[in-house]
């Protein structure tokens, strides 16, 4: 969370704000800056290597490429915040892809409209999450083992469900999830709505603080935040509009990101997730239903994996025996961790996962474009993951060292 103003009536000056921020950095709260700087460095590098990297076409491609991983990473952040892990997300996304493909299959005897197939694939995610979460929360089986079992079992389910090896998705609505692009005008309207919503949220927060008699931090800083968010949104739309337009998958990720970030930071549920991850025993003694929180978090993780799986299936307009396999699981967890989410629980953010997913997708995209092999991509991604976790561990040590 961004540092908030101190609770004195006097308006906190810029110096006080900077000092507080600096205290935070020194005691290990480094925020998203390493990822943002890393992302910028990678963009500069690939732009110099290949002229096609920084084009509207590739930008649109990149958004659709990262959408699935970003969605899954946003969900798994909640599990990591609890200090748990979900290894099944890859194949849960595969199962959802198979469900959606199977249910739209013409002539199968159970063909359903695309939208209903999508809803049922998401329901599958709910059921899987509730099942796995119950083992963790109610029986106390370590999440590593429960979801490792899920990883193995769901891989088998996918192979069993696809005796023909591949299903081609012919339903247009399903394929549009990853292949629909908004018109230029619709793109601008989306930009206006997103920026307006953000500005309204900031304004209502400021008014709330004023009404409560709590000091508001420097107003031009708030204005700056709105300007930055609005600027980025309009820039994205402007670039996308020079090619096919804003992809639906991009809007989907943006909406999921806003919803999940809101749940994590602004609701009692999100607060309880952080509390359980920080000190589960304290949370229990404070009357928080820890088991309920754990089960709901595993449901979130599986549902987001299911949505990610639908995006993957739509992008290829098919599912095959590789659905949910490959690097999906590790990319998603790596994205969350690179984005500053601690594997020890209690620390991390949805925003970080989105940035981490952008970083990983950008590397994959750029290395493909230059013509390097997948081997290079794996090595680079691995090294960045190691660097991110090292940074996390070092900053965590400072955080505990600065206490008491």
């Amino acid at each position, binding site marked *: 969370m961004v*540092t*908030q*103003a*101190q*609770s004195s009536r006097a308006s906190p000056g810029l110096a006080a704000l900077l000092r*507080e921020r600096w*205290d*935070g950095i020194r*005691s290990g*709260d480094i925020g998203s800056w390493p990822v943002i700087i890393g992302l910028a460095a990678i963009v500069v590098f690939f732009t110099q290597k290949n002229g096609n990297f920084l084009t509207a076409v590739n930008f649109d491609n990149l958004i659709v490429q990262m959408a699935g991983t970003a969605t899954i990473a946003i969900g798994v952040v909640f599990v990591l915040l609890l200090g748990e892990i979900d290894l099944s997300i890859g194949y849960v996304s595969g199962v959802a892809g198979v469900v959606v493909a199977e249910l739209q299959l013409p002539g199968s005897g159970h063909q359903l409209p695309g939208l209903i197939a999508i809803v049922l694939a998401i329901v599958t995610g709910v059921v899987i999450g509730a099942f796995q979460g119950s083992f963790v929360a109610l029986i106390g089986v370590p999440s590593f083992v429960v979801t490792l079992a899920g990883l193995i079992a769901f891989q088998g389910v996918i192979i069993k469900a696809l005796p023909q090896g591949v299903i081609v998705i012919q339903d247009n609505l399903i394929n549009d999830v990853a292949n629909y692009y908004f018109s230029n005008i619709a793109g601008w309207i989306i930009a206006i709505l997103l920026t307006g919503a953000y500005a309204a949220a900031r304004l209502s927060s400021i008014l*709330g*603080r004023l*009404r*409560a*008699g*709590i000091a508001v931090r420097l107003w031009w800083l708030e204005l700056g935040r709105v300007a930055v968010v609005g600027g980025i949104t309009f820039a994205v739309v402007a670039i996308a509009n020079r090619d096919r337009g804003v992809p639906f998958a991009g809007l989907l990720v943006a909406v999921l990101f806003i919803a999940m970030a809101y749940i994590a930071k*602004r*609701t*009692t*549920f999100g*607060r*309880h997730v*952080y*509390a359980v*991850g*920080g*000190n589960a*025993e*304290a*949370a*229990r*003694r*404070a*009357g*928080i239903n820890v088991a309920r929180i754990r089960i709901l978090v595993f449901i979130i993780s599986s549902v987001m994996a299911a949505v990610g799986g639908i995006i993957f299936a739509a992008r290829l307009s098919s599912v095959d025996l590789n659905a949910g396999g490959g690097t999906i699981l590790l990319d998603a967890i790596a994205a969350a961790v690179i984005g500053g989410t601690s594997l020890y629980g*209690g*620390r991390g953010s949805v925003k970080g996962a989105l940035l981490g997913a952008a970083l990983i997708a950008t590397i994959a995209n750029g290395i493909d474009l230059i013509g390097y092999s997948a081997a290079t991509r794996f090595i680079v991604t691995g090294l960045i993951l190691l660097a991110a976790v090292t940074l996390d561990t070092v900053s965590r040590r400072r*955080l*505990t060292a*600065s*206490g*008491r």
Partner: protein
Amino acid sequence: MSRTAPTLELRGISKSFGSVRALIDVDFEVRDGEVMALVGDNGAGKSTLIQCVAGIHQIDRGKIYFEGKLVRIRGPNDAARLGIEVVYQDLALADNLDVVQNMYLGREEHDWFQRLSETIMERRTAETMKSLAVTTIGSIRQPVARLSGGQRQSVAVARAVMWNSRVVILDEPTAALGVVQTRQVLDLVKRLAKQGLAVVIISHNLLDVFEVATRITVLRLGRNVAVFERDKTTQDEVVHAITTGAPTKAPDVGDTDEGLPTW
């Protein structure tokens, strides 16, 4: 002592963990405006008793009365609803959350849409800190991990008294503190009782106990030994009760008035 019912009264409490009988037929009470000390050696059942009151454990047998009315405490929320607050020895703070978030842990202010009301929580936290004269913390929006031991203790105590609580239970509040901080906490305990709260303090330090307590309940191996009034007993007598389980000092002969020891 007043004739009215005790604020919190336990009668015949028993609790077992498997084959271990942690509490056997224990009675306990505390009244408004008094500090009741709960003492006993390790394994006497002090922590188990307060965890039963706090709703962490459920009692096997016995009755709990709150202001004379029979109540059941099935979970931490039941205890909180009655106005029973516990400051645990380990403080039960989430290090990754800030001071305000810890103060409201588990009972966050929110609107109909489960949206947190940060401004209300921040303002009330600041007010509580001020009313308890806790001025050393600085920003109440910094993570608890950055606070010192004494500051963390202040946060835990402030959290307990913020909720219009009736009974505040402190488990070894001074065990991890230095001299100055111990003094501050003991003063705070006396202030709470003066405000009319019923205060229970668990401590191994009899000097602390004799300074703040009005009465002293002694447990030994999960059973009641005795309840002493501070003004009518001595540390020797309490130590004797803790170690041997004998409720009164050994030689009763020649004892003239009000339990003052003659030996």
